[in-house]
């Protein structure tokens, strides 16, 4: 339920950039590793946005897949490459409730050299990419 606080953070950010104008649309980039549930975020957003410039705004989001990079050997790979067959989604037990096998364990170790000095190159995003605001018609 971190989506409640995250909804507040989205609204604060959008309002800061809206400069007093009504916000109609907010586009987000959600990294896969942040484990944000978009439906839950939208639910809380609707409530928290009441009485703000963001009231009634639409939330759109793009999910950013997790990509890892090894600082030792320079390899980069998508996190999904470390998931074995049968476990389609990060962190979830395969269908049927089977205990995840070692092969299905997502690993943050380097796929090529096994090194531990691995950085997350993408997948940690929780960004407001852009907003659309209502602009009064130009009177000039």
């Amino acid at each position, binding site marked *: 339920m971190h989506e*409640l*606080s995250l909804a507040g953070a989205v609204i604060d*950010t959008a309002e800061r950039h*809206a400069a007093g104008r009504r916000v109609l649309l907010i586009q987000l980039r959600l990294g896969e*590793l942040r484990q944000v549930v978009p439906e839950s975020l939208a639910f809380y957003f609707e409530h928290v946005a009441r009485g703000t410039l963001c009231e009634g705004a639409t939330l759109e989001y793009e999910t950013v897949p997790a990509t890892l990079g090894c600082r030792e050997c320079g390899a980069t790979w998508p996190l999904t490459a470390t998931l074995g067959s049968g476990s389609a989604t990060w*962190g979830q*037990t395969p269908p049927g409730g089977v205990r995840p096998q070692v092969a299905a364990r*997502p690993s943050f*170790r380097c796929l090529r050299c096994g090194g531990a000095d691995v950085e997350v190159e993408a997948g940690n995003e929780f960004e*407001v990419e852009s907003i659309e605001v209502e602009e009064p018609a130009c009177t000039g």
Partner: protein
Amino acid sequence: MHRVKVRVVEDALDANNTIARANRDDFDRHGVAVVNLMSAPGAGKTSLLERALERPLGEGIRVGVLEGDVQGEYDAMRIASLHVPVTQINTDSGFGGECHLDANMVRTALPSVPLAEIDLLVIENVGNLVCPAEFRVGEDVRVMVAAITEGEDKPLKYPLMYRTCELVLINKVDLLPHLEVDLEELLANIDAVHPGVETLVVSARTGEGVEEWRRWLAARVARRAAAPVA
């Protein structure tokens, strides 16, 4: 009226991070090492803190505690009985009660924390494996408690929390003979999501590993003391 697109490209948590940096500056000015202690509810944060602080951590090391809870002062009372200065933050003033501490809650509580009189501040976060990992509060280091009773799969389910910590305390190991939990599997899962992270196997109940936990805390204070003061 017409629609105008405004490019933002900003981390939505930037505002929190800015306040966290202000907290960090205050901690640095007083040369205080700060630990953000996190876990699921009931994993043993307060118990491990009590065990660590029931005797002085080391010569001249003065400790303060900031307790974060949705409601109540139960934990603060436990810590206060050890004659450690403690400040309680309750997060229930908002919409349903926040499930974590953020930088601003800590900032608001700072005036009642005697920064000039302590060397180590432990911020005990609200029990939760998701939200606290999202919000920096100005800490030097993050420590989490993983109780063995939670099962060996939790690192795979809550990778963000496990990845943001520099130390994982595996608590309640005295219960291992009574459980079907595989400690080696838990350690392997922790290593999978956070390769090389430090782990300590402990029991707040029997005291196993508590000396190592105390030495780890004392070492963080020594490291802070050796760093140049801002």
